[in-house]
């Protein structure tokens, strides 16, 4: 049930929460190759590309952002673990929130959504759910980190 709930509220693709939409991948649909690509990727390349165009710093800004993200995120993940272990809903909520905004910024949409759900569960005082969501969050972060490392080291994935 929890798994189903997870799938329904924040499954892969991080769809808007209309709940009616199928969680199934849409990769088979013609002309939606990029969406399909996004489903498989932890970090949305369009977001990074847009960031590159946002300022006159171009690619350098993206590299700086990713650098900062990779540097600061472990702290927040550690804080999240500590808070879960200490059964501290406020700590869980706050760590998830902080991680979420930077994750969304660099295009880690699914991770962002997992952060939001964890934050919400903690706010609802449902630490059991928050804990389970956090496990998915940690796993997703590993994917994000790999992709970002590749991004800044110039390796295409």
């Amino acid at each position, binding site marked *: 049930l929890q798994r189903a709930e997870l799938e329904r509220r924040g499954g892969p693709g991080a769809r808007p929460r209309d709940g009616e939409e199928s969680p199934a991948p849409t990769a088979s649909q013609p002309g939606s190759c990029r969406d399909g690509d996004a489903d498989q990727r932890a970090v949305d390349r369009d977001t990074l590309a847009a*960031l590159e*165009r*946002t*300022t*006159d*710093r171009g690619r350098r*800004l993206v590299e*700086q*952002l990713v650098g*900062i*993200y990779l540097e*600061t995120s472990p702290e927040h993940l550690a804080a999240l673990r500590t808070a879960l272990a200490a059964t501290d809903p406020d700590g869980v909520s*706050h760590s998830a*929130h*902080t991680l979420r*905004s*930077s994750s*969304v*910024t*660099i295009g880690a949409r699914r991770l962002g959504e997992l952060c939001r759900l964890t934050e919400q569960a903690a706010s609802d005082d449902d630490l059991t759910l928050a804990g389970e969501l956090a496990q998915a969050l940690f796993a997703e972060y590993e994917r994000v980190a790999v992709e970002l490392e590749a991004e800044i080291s110039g390796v295409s994935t």
Partner: protein
Amino acid sequence: VSGEHSPGAPGRILVIDDEPTQRLLARAALESSGHEVAEAAGGENAVDLAASFRPDLVLLDVRMPLLDGFEVCRRLRRLAACRDTSILMMTGLDDIDSIERAYEAGATDFAVKPINWTILAHRVAYMLRASRASMRLRLSEAKLANSQRIARLGYWEWQPNSNRLDYSFESIQLLGLAEAADPRVVLDLYEAAHPEDREICERFVAELDGERRLAESEFRIVTPQGETRFIRQLAGITRNLVEQVVVTGAVQDVTEQRLAEERVRQLANYDVLTELPNRRCLTDELRRWLERSHDRRTRLALFFLDFDRFKMINDNLGHAGGDELLQRSAARLEAWAAELLDRGLPKPLIARFGGDEFVVVSEVGGDTCADTLARDLLDIWRRPFEVQCHEVGIRMSIGIAQYPEDGREVEILLRKGDVAMYQVKNRGGNGYCFYDESRAGGGLDRLRLELELSEAVGRNELVLFYQPIYDPQHQLFGAEALVRWQHPQRGLLTPNDFLPLAEETGLIVPIGNWVLRELCHRAVEWAARATRPIFVTVNLSARQLEQPDFELQLETHLADSGLDPKLLMFELTETLGVTRIRGVQDTLRRIAARGSVIAIDDFGTGYSAIPVLKALPVGAVKIAQEFMDGVPEDPSNAGIVRAICGIAHDLGLTVIAEGVETAEQARFLADEGCNLMQGFHLGRPMAADQLAALLETTGLVADPS
């Protein structure tokens, strides 16, 4: 740094977010648009940074550890540097609660996360423009308010359609309203108007309703502290942006100007010393009185008052004493006027005309008559003044001119009052008299006379006449020298015509000196030719005696002429008063010691005849002319003459009778033992040549041949 991404001038932007990627993004995006960016990771140092950085705009994250965005926002608003800064709060998309709290904390706007930084850079440009416009507006408002405060200027605005009244704080203060006042309509603004000026305000409001384009008024207000201030107000009718009629009023405190004007008016119209209206004010006011009298067919009396012998008072008391006397006199005049008013009589107009001259104007008729008022006025000075520990007695001369009998114009009435006053002076002062055309025919213009008299000696216009004095055996004893003024236009003037003026103005000193010199030389001529001594007597004024160089001058004349001082007799009037006589006592003793005779003139008419006789080296007394009236038939005068002769003889004094007009009087006087006599019966005053001729005919002169 290029500003191509967003239009508008760059600003100073402070980014406050605990999330480093957000700060980096914000900085990158905003710097791309040319803005200067500072960042803070937390609320605590953000407030300090804001105070020194003075941002135009703050990007503030709601959710931060320790100090949340709302608290930071509130603290920023308390900073002087951030009171007008735009604060953009970044909130979660679904966080309606945060959006509301941000508004309450004083945020300018909010942006929903995740932020689209490209869009945000544009949004910042919009916000900066808006905040700059409102900043300029606020600055210009502050400047305007400052200048209005300095100019003590306030404004109000009334929209008749909506009946809405707006006003500046300054105008509430200027209009003297309490701080808590809540005026709703224009008339409410005049709550503090002076009761007498309320009508002005009501009329002003009525004029506004009457669609007049511009209205102006001035009125007084009474402040909550009870102070009266002058307010000038202007109002104009205009139309606002939506074409509604708007009445705008400007309120200005013009108290300082009015007070300055009042001071100028006061100085121009009032005498500084006595605070009475001055000559200029009197002239204006009298003109109005005359117009009113003309309309109402009432009559006016103008009293021209002048102190008798004021110069002497000034000489004795000093100018400060003289000034004090004038102030006290003015106070008594005003008290008198107030009393008249209390008695239901018309209040007179009182002014200081100049020097020691006052003018009083009153309506006359009915219960008020000029004679009564004149007597009232004389009474005012009857009570002596205590000035600088001296008791000073004052006598006044009052000349009266009447409207319409004596004239209908200010200048004529003043002049005629002056002339009448001088007529009183001629009679010895201390009294009043109405202007009399026939007596003034000679045109006794005092000022001109004074000028002319001052030149009379130099122009050789003075002459001495001599009235012979005989002994009871009808032997010529000598003559009394009497001064005459051969006036070029007015003919021969007698001492009564000009000596009071000479005495008052001090011209008596040079005149007396001339008389002495002339007399000495003439007497020597006669003495040289006569077979027996011919005595000469002359009046001596106290003022002459009081001159420090009088004795020296007398000495000079005696030495120059070679006249034996024993042939000189000086006549003093005892009405001088004891005090003044004491002052010249020593001088008189020295004169008497050289052989001249001191005589008391008009003996018996003064206050203290007997003590004077004892105090001074007197050798003779002259019986006043008035006691000769009706002698010897009048038992009372005859008794007085007899008594004077008796006393004089007992004291070993020579008695001289004046005004002997009949043979009976001469016989009576001879019988009573009077030593010498003079009068029309015996011989009129005559020129020196005539007296010389008389000496010859009476055989007193050795035949020249």
